[in-house]
């Protein structure tokens, strides 16, 4: 087991193993005019509450498209997407925007912080859009993500890793039911990327459901117990990985040759 804590008591449909379903895609297709790249070709998948799932695939495979559809940033050509029991297709534009704001956190590869706002102001935007004064929550997140001392800085004066932490805090300010991350380490060096992933893993341990798009199999398998492989707009594998304690020699075997003759 990976120490997962399932929070909340709502059940969104009949999940297996007593877990509750948070996201369901049913026969989802996405056709882009004039190009094949990123299209989806009949995807059905269900994500349980509390899962840390990685979506992997080559560029143009449709993995980011999948994430954008789940986020409500885009609409499918056909098929249905339900998040937290809400059929996104039944929401109008305003309803969809509200749903995103209230329930979805999104972290992007290039942070997308507003340059004219401080770190703290960036974090507070989604809450302000809801009409909330979330200063206590923001302070808690700043502390949790280790960026309290840079709260008043503008993005240009933050390192890449700090900017991504601010972006993660912004994504979490409204306590989203689902955190989506599209290549969150893609613009960071290896070490900083690992720190950001550790952060996501920590959130997952506290019960956060996370859907991560990445092409880094090392990072994906370190933190996500489920790896969905997408290729040419289709799910080609859905692997649930085990994490038992194995003897080192069952994982790596250094081979030695005896001295000859």
């Amino acid at each position, binding site marked *: 087991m990976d120490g997962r804590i399932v929070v909340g008591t709502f059940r969104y449909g009949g999940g297996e193993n007593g877990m509750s379903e948070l996201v369901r895609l049913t026969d989802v297709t996405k056709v882009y005019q004039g190009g094949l790249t990123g299209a989806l070709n009949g995807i059905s998948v269900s994500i349980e509450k509390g899962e840390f799932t990685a979506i992997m695939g080559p560029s143009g495979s449709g993995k980011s498209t999948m994430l954008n559809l789940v986020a409500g940033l885009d609409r499918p050509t056909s098929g249905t997407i339900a998040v937290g029991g809400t059929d996104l297709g039944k929401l109008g534009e305003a309803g969809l925007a509200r749903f995103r704001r209230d329930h979805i956190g999104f972290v992007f590869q290039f942070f997308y912080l507003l340059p004219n706002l401080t770190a703290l102001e960036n974090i507070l935007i989604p809450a302000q859009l809801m009409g909330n004064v979330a200063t206590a929550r923001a302070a808690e997140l700043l502390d949790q993500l280790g960026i309290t001392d840079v709260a008043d800085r503008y993005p240009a004066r933050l390192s890449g890793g700090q900017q991504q932490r601010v972006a993660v805090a912004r994504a979490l300010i409204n306590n989203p039911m689902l955190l989506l991350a599209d290549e969150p380490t893609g613009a960071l060096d290896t070490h900083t990327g690992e720190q950001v992933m550790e952060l996501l893993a920590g959130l997952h341990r506290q019960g956060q459901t996370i859907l991560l798009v990445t092409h880094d199999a*090392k990072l994906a398998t370190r933190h996500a117990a489920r790896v969905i492989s997408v290729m040419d707009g289709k799910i080609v594998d859905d692997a649930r990985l085990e994490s038992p304690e*194995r003897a080192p*020699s069952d994982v*790596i*075997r250094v081979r*030695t*040759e005896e001295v000859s003759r």
Partner: protein
Amino acid sequence: MSLKYGVLGLLKGEPLHGYEVKNRFEAMLGGTWDVNIGQIYTTLQRLERDGLVRPAGPRGDRGKQLYELSPEGQKALDQWLAQPDSGPQQLHEDIYVKLLLAARIANGDLQGMLARQKRAYLQRLRDLNRLEERARRDGRLDLARLVRGALLHTEADLKWMDELSSERFGTEGAKTE
């Protein structure tokens, strides 16, 4: 890797008897190594025969013999360390041959084979990640580096599976003789 030079390397600095060599070797490689004590004794005897190690003092308790590096052994070790690993790439896993055979066999389930192998690699990556974490937790940074190497190798294997999957294998590969 060569057991011979591994033993020479461990004897550099301090004389050891066979059982100590085995224990040091196992400790250094963090349990990722499988060798029996008999192989160590055989190796030591051959190294002694070739003049690369020599007995340090008389046999002790229960015939225990300490060995030390000879000047020739020191020289051989230095040369080995200075020489880059060259020569052919070692491919010792079955998948390499399985793939070639599957491409030859009519109705060979190549895509299925690739998918199953890919999943095995994903699980291996997860296991390696656990092992690396454990090594770091134990303060064994040298071992963590070894595991990191294995991680990157497995990542490359995984990429290879992806590349092959997207190649759309036909039967043309099987026709070449």
